[in-house]
């Protein structure tokens, strides 16, 4: 079956993108990446704490993966652009997940600042993947700005609450021609499958895998769910109905005389 995801001019082998935060130990990450089959892997850029300079996360990400540094910590478009430029200059490639957040309680993205950063970074040749609140007009603006995809949230970051914004994401999938990648909030493989059944191009999962009792096993569970959901989308779901419609014939019952 010819069903490929293309982003930034590249064919992407897995529709499950994996984040690397919150794992119980960094040594678990390579195994989780392997079992997830993920090719696109996110990470963040931070100042070094001289008192406890932890190891570089890149050590744990296989060379063949596409690195997707996020701009977390950015509170406006200028800060996001700066982080993206540093990440690229540091040899991370030209992909960037734009994340502009000034709300510390719900970590909801600032769409207006995200659009500004997306336009600038796309002009500079970045493959721009913006994390956003699922608003149709803003998704259109991001598309016009040159984003490679839009990444609406299902629920607040790290909440594991599932596809709470489902109806809005459904509209984006219907109206936006670039891939819609559901990012944030997905807590269970069934929710990842549901996003894919709706026609999402991919899902980005971090907390649900990293904080599972067995992250490596959960990584594979998500991989299977994403594949199943995508296949169901391609197969075309049957119609839903308000009343029963028998699956077995309504004639030739054995008690008929």
């Amino acid at each position, binding site marked *: 079956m010819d069903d490929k995801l293309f982003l930034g001019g590249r064919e992407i082998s897995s529709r499950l993108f994996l984040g*690397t935060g919150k794992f119980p130990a960094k040594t678990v990450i390579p195994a989780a990446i392997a079992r997830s089959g993920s090719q696109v892997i996110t*990470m963040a850029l931070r100042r070094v704490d*001289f008192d406890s300079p*932890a*190891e570089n996360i890149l050590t744990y990400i296989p060379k063949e993966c596409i690195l997707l540094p996020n701009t977390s910590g950015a509170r406006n478009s200028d800060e996001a652009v700066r982080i993206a430029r*540093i990440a690229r200059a540091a040899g*991370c490639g030209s992909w960037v997940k734009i994340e502009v957040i000034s709300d510390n309680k719900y970590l909801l993205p600032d769409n207006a600042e995200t659009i500004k950063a997306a336009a600038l970074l796309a002009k500079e040749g970045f493959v721009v993947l913006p994390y956003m609140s699922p608003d149709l007009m803003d998704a259109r603006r991001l598309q016009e700005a040159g984003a490679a995809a839009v990444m609406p949230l299902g629920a607040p970051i790290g909440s594991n609450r599932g596809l709470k914004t489902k109806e809005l994401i459904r509209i984006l999938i219907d109206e936006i021609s670039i891939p819609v990648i559901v990012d944030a909030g997905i807590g269970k493989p069934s929710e990842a499958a549901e996003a894919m059944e709706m026609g999402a191009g991919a899902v*980005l999962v*971090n*907390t649900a895998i990293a904080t599972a009792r067995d992250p490596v096993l959960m990584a594979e569970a998500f991989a299977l769910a994403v594949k199943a959901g995508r296949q169901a989308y391609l197969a075309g779901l049957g119609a839903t109905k308000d009343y029963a419609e028998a699956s077995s014939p309504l004639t030739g019952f054995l008690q008929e005389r």
Partner: protein
Amino acid sequence: MLIIVNGREEQIAQGSALAEYIRSKDLASGEFIYILNEMLIERERLENTILKERDRLEVLKFVGGG
């Protein structure tokens, strides 16, 4: 002289090379990203980059994130 490292003021000896500063912090230089006054300093230039009064240095690294 005074420089600003990751947003904090710090006193260092006049004429120190960036590489010396890194060694004084016990950091393995290859692991991190060095931004001096908004310019990325490549590893091969660490020895030849001399820090100046009120330089702003950012020492960064990639960490796990979603």
